[in-house]
């Protein structure tokens, strides 16, 4: 293995990494083989049950039997990889990378790091303050705060699984654009007076930005990947099954282009309307995506659906309430407004491109 030199030189660990290597290789092989046979298996299952693919019930059931394992398998691969990546990028490390960066470069870096840094919305406040303490500029901090929840591995894996890699990649780049633009705008507006007093006092108070790098072994990193998979799967698998079931129902029974009039390309107001509805809503990517797939299948425009999804994931009423502890209402309003406008623009762009 090329990274053998990273391991401590004792025999026990080498054996452990060898076991990991063999196990992962076997898992990968199994994964690829199953992946290639998903469609055949779904067709076979429908035949065995004795249903006709061209009838609504057969069509809906086949959609379900094919789609659920496909999405779960992609999620498995992406979440495992991200669990491993997380062992390289702690919030502390990200902070020290961003400390003292200028507007522009700093915002781009913050948005990109937001994708790979482990982040939980419940620690948004301590993270926000930790960044400001270490001298990360306010606008750069906001770029991170927009990108981290919006562009997460679950969202990307599900988009990939349901709409293909192009849409996933586009979501990622559009999300990065929103995060960078929102951070730059907030940075230029000089909003520091709208931080709560106790937060202002802490700004730049410990610009060291040090972090520990322990001796991290590959077996440890892989173990973290497995842990991450367990954690995420426990939380989202039911959403995916329910969501795809809903999608399958619509797939089989709701008439084609049912949504076209409401969320189609022709109605210009549909993008801002979708964002306005989505902003206060709170859901994770898993909960919202299958619904979006169902909407798209029936003629809703891609840009409108993506804008809805971004606004649900990136902004929510509970998040605003948490942020109220560190931001004055005016800065919260600016934050929500700037991000919402960015998402609306991205929605129109998506609609133009597809």
């Amino acid at each position, binding site marked *: 293995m090329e990274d053998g030199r990273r391991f*401590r030189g*004792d025999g*026990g*660990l080498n054996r*452990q990494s060898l076991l990991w290597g063999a196990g992962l290789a076997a898992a990968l092989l199994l994964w690829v083989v199953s992946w290639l046979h998903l469609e055949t298996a779904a067709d076979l299952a429908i035949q065995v049950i004795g249903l006709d693919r061209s009838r609504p019930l057969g069509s809906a059931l086949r959609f379900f039997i094919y789609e659920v394992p496909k999405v779960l398998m992609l999620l498995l691969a992406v979440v495992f990889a991200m669990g491993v990546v997380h062992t390289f990028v702690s*919030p*502390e490390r990200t*902070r020290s990378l961003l400390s003292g960066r200028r507007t522009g470069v700093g915002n781009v870096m913050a948005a990109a790091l937001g994708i790979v840094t*482990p982040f*939980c919305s*419940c*620690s948004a*406040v*301590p*993270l926000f*303050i*930790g960044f400001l303490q270490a001298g990360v500029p306010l606008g750069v901090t906001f770029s991170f705060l927009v990108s981290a929840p919006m562009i997460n591995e679950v969202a990307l894996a599900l988009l990939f699984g349901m709409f293909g890699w192009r849409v996933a990649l586009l979501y990622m780049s559009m999300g990065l654009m929103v995060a960078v633009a929102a951070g730059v705008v907030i940075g230029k507006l000089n909003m520091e007076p709208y931080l709560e007093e*106790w937060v202002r006092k*802490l700004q730049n108070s*410990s610009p060291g930005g040090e972090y*520990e790098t*322990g*001796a*991290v*072994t590959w*077996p*440890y990193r892989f*173990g973290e990947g497995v842990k991450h998979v367990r954690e995420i799967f426990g939380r989202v698998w039911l959403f995916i099954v329910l969501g795809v079931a809903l999608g399958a129902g619509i797939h089989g029974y709701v008439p084609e282009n049912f949504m076209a009039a409401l969320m189609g390309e022709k109605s210009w107001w549909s993008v801002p309307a979708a964002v306005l509805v989505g902003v206060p809503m709170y859901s994770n990517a898993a909960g919202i995506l299958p619904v979006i797939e169902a909407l798209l299948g029936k003629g809703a425009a891609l840009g409108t659906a993506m804008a809805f999804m971004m606004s649900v994931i990136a902004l929510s009423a509970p998040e605003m309430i*948490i942020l109220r*502890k*560190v931001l004055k209402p005016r800065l919260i309003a600016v934050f929500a407004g700037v991000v919402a406008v960015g998402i609306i623009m991205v929605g129109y762009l998506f609609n133009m491109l597809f």
Partner: protein
Amino acid sequence: MKQVKILGSGCAKCNQLAEAVRAVIAAEGIEASVEKVEDMQEIVAYGVMSTPALVVDGEVCCKGRVPSADEIREMLSAAPHRCCCGDHAKGSGRQNGTCC
């Protein structure tokens, strides 16, 4: 008597950590006071950027995750200022008890 603090804004994981810590304390018969800290200013004062975090006798032992019962036992039984976060301690990566 150990002073144990759980830092977190009341999210699901914070409650998990508090329960796990209480369970270990009860099972091992460790003498300790457990306090949940939800005030942001106090949490931030510990320099923690990801919650939940476990503080034993004033030192941050673990942050951003819920450690296993074994790890918690180790953190609670370590001598003062020797508590190990175990973050990078899996396998034999940690030697001669170096701490984070």
